């Protein structure tokens, strides 16, 4: 065993000597910061703690490579970085948690539709599922913190649009919504289009405001009809 340790040490020494341009000291700092943090850190947070001029993207890339095959991996979630245990070791660590009120089939489907189709209105969700949505489904997902109201559609009635949150990305280990599993295939098949296969205008699930979407203003009066509520104006 000690021969292994020695071999590892040699590797470490080697690393130190050769990677002078990667600045091994900066690498150690990023490593320490990410290890210590309880939340994912973004590049900006890292750069405030590192010496000026440190090559943060390069350091993260190097660190990701170092940990690639280890028991702990560096993951990019929601555009931030976090060390997580390797997914193939889940069996070792898995905790049977009383999962938040096991999600219903309706809630799971609704969450997926919101994730892949965002920004999406309630009517669009109902069109895809072919069934009216109960109030509870959206409420549960909002309560868990995986979805949020993100804007309003510039269509009659100005319906609110839903999208996923950072907590959703962190929970599911996604770098961004563009990294949702199978999103490219769904897009290619035209299933993420709002309107049946007429062909044009392929919306990406996007966190940026859609072309016909306004940012959500909680003070905007609710208008089921097109009438203007003069009292609130």
């Amino acid at each position, binding site marked *: 065993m000690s021969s292994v340790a020695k071999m590892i040490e040699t590797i470490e020494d080697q690393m130190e000597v050769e990677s002078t341009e990667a600045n091994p000291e900066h690498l150690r700092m990023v490593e320490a910061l990410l290890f210590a943090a309880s939340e994912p850190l973004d590049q900006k947070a890292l750069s405030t703690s590192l010496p000026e001029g440190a090559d943060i993207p390069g350091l993260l890339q190097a660190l990701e490579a170092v940990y690639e095959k280890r028991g702990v991996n560096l993951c990019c979630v929601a555009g931030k970085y976090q060390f997580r245990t390797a997914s193939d070791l889940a069996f070792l660590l898995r905790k049977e948690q009383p999962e938040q009120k096991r999600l219903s089939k*309706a809630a799971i489907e609704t969450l997926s539709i919101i994730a*892949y189709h965002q920004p999406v209105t309630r009517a669009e969700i109902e069109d895809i599922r072919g069934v009216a949505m109960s109030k509870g489904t959206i409420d549960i997902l909002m309560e868990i913190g995986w979805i949020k109201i993100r804007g309003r559609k510039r269509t009659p009635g100005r319906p609110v649009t839903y999208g996923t949150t950072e907590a959703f990305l962190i929970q599911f280990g996604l770098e961004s919504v563009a990294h949702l599993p199978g999103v490219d295939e769904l897009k290619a098949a035209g299933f993420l289009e709002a309107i049946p296969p007429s062909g044009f205008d392929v919306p990406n699930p996007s966190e940026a405001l859609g072309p016909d979407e306004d940012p959500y203003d909680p003070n905007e009066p609710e208008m089921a009809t097109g009438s203007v509520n003069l009292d609130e104006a």
Partner: protein
Amino acid sequence: MSETAENFEDFEAAAIVRDDEALLVHVDGFEGPLDLLLTLARNQKVDIAKISILKLADQYLEFIESAKKLNLELAADYLVMAAWLAYLKSRLILPQEKGPDGEPTADEMATRLRWRLQRLDAMRAAATRLMGRERLDRDVFGRGDPEAVNVIKLRTYKDTMYDLLTAYATERARKLGGKSYRPQMAPVLAIEEARERLERMLGKISDWSALTGLLPFEWQGGARRRSAVASTLLACLEMARDGKVELQQMAPFAEIFVRDGQRGPDVPSNIPEATTPGA
């Protein structure tokens, strides 16, 4: 319809009813007519993209018929779908003809239904993949014992040399019993001060002016005012004796009026009775 939607079934439960035998009994297990159609389509065991809509419509209508025979209560949207499918079926069987203005052809309607079924199917597959991901704190874990950032208070003291010397001097003086005597100044306007003030003002007093109007601004209240009135009056009397001012009082305790004594005796007194303030 909303009853169906609120009927939260999970995937496992839904899988059970996908069994042909169970279809009739478990109508409530479906999440709406589209879900039922998708299940029926799956049972055809062909690619949904190539599914026969005619056959699917038959299966659906057959299902609704048997449900009716069993007196199962069907939600309205199941019946709406049945009516629509019956219409579509009739149009598919008849030779192709254009519907009324702008209405899609039967083929177009079938394609649209096929596409919706495919989309629902695809979204369900995506949901399964999404839920199958390694989840934080269930499958993968962050640092179990994160190290908190320590906030170190950098304490600096504002105390200056001034504070130090003040503390020393007062402390020492106090200990030596040494409250040094500082006479308490009574709020008194000195007659000299009042006279100096009046002399400076003489040129500016144009005509008879009320004595109380000549008091220094900062001596206008309470005990200070009384002292100022007395001192100013005494100063006025001194100055009147020297012929520097003239004084006039209409009645005992009434307001006293002052004017420049250098105006000469030829100027008649012109204090109007009316302006005399009350006592």
